[in-house]
């Protein structure tokens, strides 16, 4: 199997230097002052298991430490430990020490820690939608942060709230202030979170994957905002991310964690030029890989799928509401052996399109012709013969596999349902396919939860390939995966496509990823297909506004 090789986890002591900041840093902090945050020998346990081990680092005033690591690397736990917000059942080792401005934080005493939270320490979380209280107006939530800070005068608090909302570059604060979180866009929500964090006037702001849940263009805006805010408020920032590009963009130093340990540390330039740890090298190579997509394949072969002017409406939420249009007048076609990347921001209708192609949803108008057969003619009930030829893989590998089925059961299901092969040789087929996606027969008896995300996605892809389809629809198949794992999946897909020659519809929101795998790109916005063309052309000369904003958002952090 080819999942990430185990790297020797050597502990790295990441004591942030008091030496001069890199030249491009214009923060103007006093590098010789006492560091704002010092973390020493941090070990975090859940029961007997060590989630984080011997982590030591520090951050100076006005500086940003980008903490990068894949899921399970312990980076969020580290942040939670600094805030004193470890989940129940998780504990700190006795020897750990965290100092803020030279004073030791009472990390073992939740009550005492409360005095620091919301004042000296502030934190911004990943998913702003669920991190805001759905029942309070956003203004009230900022107001509460100010109140907690000791601002007793309501009029002053309101004024300050508006100031803060302005500082995080929210338009018309007076209006937005009275809105509830769900009435705001994701980007606006994250700005509110930031305003709340700033209300504390913190010495240290911890931003835990603040952009991961946001669309690409919004991600870039938030990163820029963070940068500007730091230069304005001069706090230290612990910036946690899994995205090397973002880390490089924002961090004065980068710290790499893996399996609970720090494995690499240094200035961005150093990390990129001379990565110390193999894992860091792997992360960098993913970036390099994405930056150099393979050449597109030639247009050849018969038309596999031909989508003709389809419309799709989501049913009204309430009686007599208008149906909500998810797709309008979408048309495109794809020939055998080639891959089409469908890209768009969340809500643009790309996943709905994928489901319609796979026969899981029925459009209200238009037709989908698969291998020349009109689906409208079949009332969008896909005949079994076609089912074999069209398969879909979903975004979330957790959800795509029934938690109660072993891998063997899960993989036999399509064979049984589609009546492929004889009962006897179905198991052989399953094993063979498992091998092909880089897994072995040991996995047959396991349950999905015992597999990593990457392994699960391999199973899902393998399962889709069992019927040897001529068209594979992949709906955001790498979005939920760590970068290195995602890269492996991309390679796998490409290899399988070469071996099998199926056509691929690859839905994604990350332009780099889509560009890497796709020969052609279709850009979706607000349920419409706004642009379609060869991947190179879209990238070099985007025609539509949507495509332009995607290109800009994606390329900026990479090329810095």
């Amino acid at each position: 199997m080819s999942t990430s090789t185990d790297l020797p986890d050597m502990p790295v002591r990441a004591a942030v230097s008091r030496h001069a900041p890199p030249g491009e840093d214009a923060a103007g902090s006093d590098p010789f002052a006492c560091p704002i945050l010092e973390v020493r020998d941090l070990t975090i346990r859940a029961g007997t298991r060590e989630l984080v081990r011997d982590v030591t680092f520090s951050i100076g005033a006005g500086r940003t430490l980008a903490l990068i690591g894949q899921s399970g690397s312990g980076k969020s736990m580290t942040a939670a430990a600094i805030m004193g917000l470890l989940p129940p059942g998780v504990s700190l080792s006795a020897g750990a020490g965290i100092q803020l401005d030279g004073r030791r934080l009472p990390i073992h005493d939740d009550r005492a820690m409360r005095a620091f939270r919301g004042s000296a320490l502030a934190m911004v979380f990943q998913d702003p939608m669920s991190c805001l209280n759905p029942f309070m107006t956003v203004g009230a939530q900022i107001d509460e942060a100010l109140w907690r800070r000791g601002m007793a005068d309501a009029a002053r608090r309101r004024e300050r709230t508006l100031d803060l909302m302005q500082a995080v570059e929210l338009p018309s604060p007076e209006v937005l202030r009275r809105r509830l979180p769900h009435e705001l866009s994701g980007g606006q929500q994250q700005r509110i979170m930031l305003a709340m964090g700033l209300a504390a006037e913190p010495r240290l702001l911890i931003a835990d994957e603040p952009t991961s849940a946001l669309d690409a263009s919004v991600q870039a805006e938030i990163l820029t905002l963070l940068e500007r805010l730091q230069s304005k408020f001069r706090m230290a920032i612990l910036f946690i991310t899994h995205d090397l590009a973002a880390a490089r963009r924002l961090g004065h130093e980068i710290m790499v964690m893996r399996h609970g340990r720090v494995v690499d540390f240094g200035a961005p330039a150093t990390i990129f030029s001379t990565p110390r740890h193999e894992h860091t090298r792997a992360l960098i190579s993913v970036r390099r890989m994405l930056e150099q997509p393979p050449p597109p394949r030639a247009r050849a072969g018969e038309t596999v799928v031909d989508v003709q002017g389809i419309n799709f409406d989501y049913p009204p939420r309430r009686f007599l509401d208008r149906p909500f249009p998810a797709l309008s007048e979408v048309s495109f076609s794809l020939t055998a052996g080639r891959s089409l990347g469908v890209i768009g921001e969340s809500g643009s209708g790309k996943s709905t399109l994928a489901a319609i192609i796979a026969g899981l949803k029925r459009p209200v108008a238009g037709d989908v012709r698969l291998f020349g057969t009109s689906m409208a003619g079949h009332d969008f009930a896909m005949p079994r013969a076609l089912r074999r030829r069209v398969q879909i893989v979903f975004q979330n590998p957790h959800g795509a596999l029934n938690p109660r089925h072993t891998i063997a059961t899960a993989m036999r299901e399509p064979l049984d349902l589609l009546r492929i092969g004889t009962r006897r040789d179905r198991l052989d087929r399953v094993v063979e396919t498992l091998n092909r996606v880089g897994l072995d027969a040991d996995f047959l008896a396991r349950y999905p939860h015992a597999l990593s995300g990457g392994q699960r996605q391999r199973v899902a892809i393998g399962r889709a390939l069992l019927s040897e389809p001529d068209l594979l629809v992949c709906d955001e198949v790498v979005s939920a995966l760590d970068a290195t794992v995602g890269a492996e999946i991309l390679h796998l897909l490409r290899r399988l496509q070469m071996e099998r020659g199926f056509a691929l519809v690859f839905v994604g929101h990350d332009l780099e990823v889509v560009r890497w795998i796709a020969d052609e790109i279709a850009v979706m916005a607000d349920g419409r297909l706004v642009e379609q063309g060869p991947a190179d052309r879209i990238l070099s000369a985007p025609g539509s506004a949507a495509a332009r904003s995607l290109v800009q958002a994606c390329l900026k952090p990479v090329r810095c």
Partner: protein
Amino acid sequence: MSRWLPVLFALLAGLARAVGIVVVTWFLCRVMPGDVVDVLGLEGGLSEAQQADLRVSLGYDRPIVVQFFDWAQHALAGDFGRSVRFDRPVADMLASAAPVTIELALGSFVVGVALALGLAIAATSMKSRLLEAAVDGLNIWSIAVPTFCAGVLGIIVFSLWLGWLPVIGSLILPIIIIGLDNAGQIVKLVREDLAEAVMLPHVRTARAKGLSPWRIAVVHVLPVAAPIVLVLSGLVLSGLVAGTLTMEILFGLPGIGSLMLNAVHGRDLPVVLAAVTVVAVALVAINTLVDALHRLIDPRVNR
């Protein structure tokens, strides 16, 4: 206008349900062995010919469907007729029984929800094993100990031994007993919901703001639990007419429950139907109200 259409639709659906209940009750009553004439005959020693005459005069010889529409027509005009057995206007009987049940139901509802909420909050915030045990204990009490059993015990202890509560006319004991039962039915669900609510990301945000546990509980956790408390409250309220029945009998309280039960046993059809109609309409009203409130207090429902 279109804003109100869903409400109208919900009301119509509720009404349809109320009508369904009444129709089902009607036919259930008609398939019961014996009718009110049997009752009167048994008590008054009517000969069979006299009973037949009485049935004709009550219209029981007509087809059931005709009888039903006749009744429904009057009921729609607000005329529930007269009790056959007691020859009194059914409306009067309902009017005298309703306040007792309403008082009993509302009282025990308030006691139950307050107790469940209080205990659940305490157990969630204090993390005390004792309180956890209290939650489980209350839950099991409500499942395993019938209210009439608790009622007898309560009378003996509080009225006879301790002499704290007067037996006559006192609603305190029945309210407490039904309240305990209500609390037991929902406390565990509220507790679980609160346990989930405190794990929600926005509560973590609130903690990151350095707010006190008290403020977090009141401002950030409770509103999340409010919808489920509301839904559970609706369930408790809809179960209350049945819940008060045994207490009404045990404590001789002349409420709707005992009125219905007596009427069923006396085969006093007009009373049974009127009581069931009133209860069904009340239930529909409660459910509609709960639904409306749910929309009101939970911004996410309309998202």
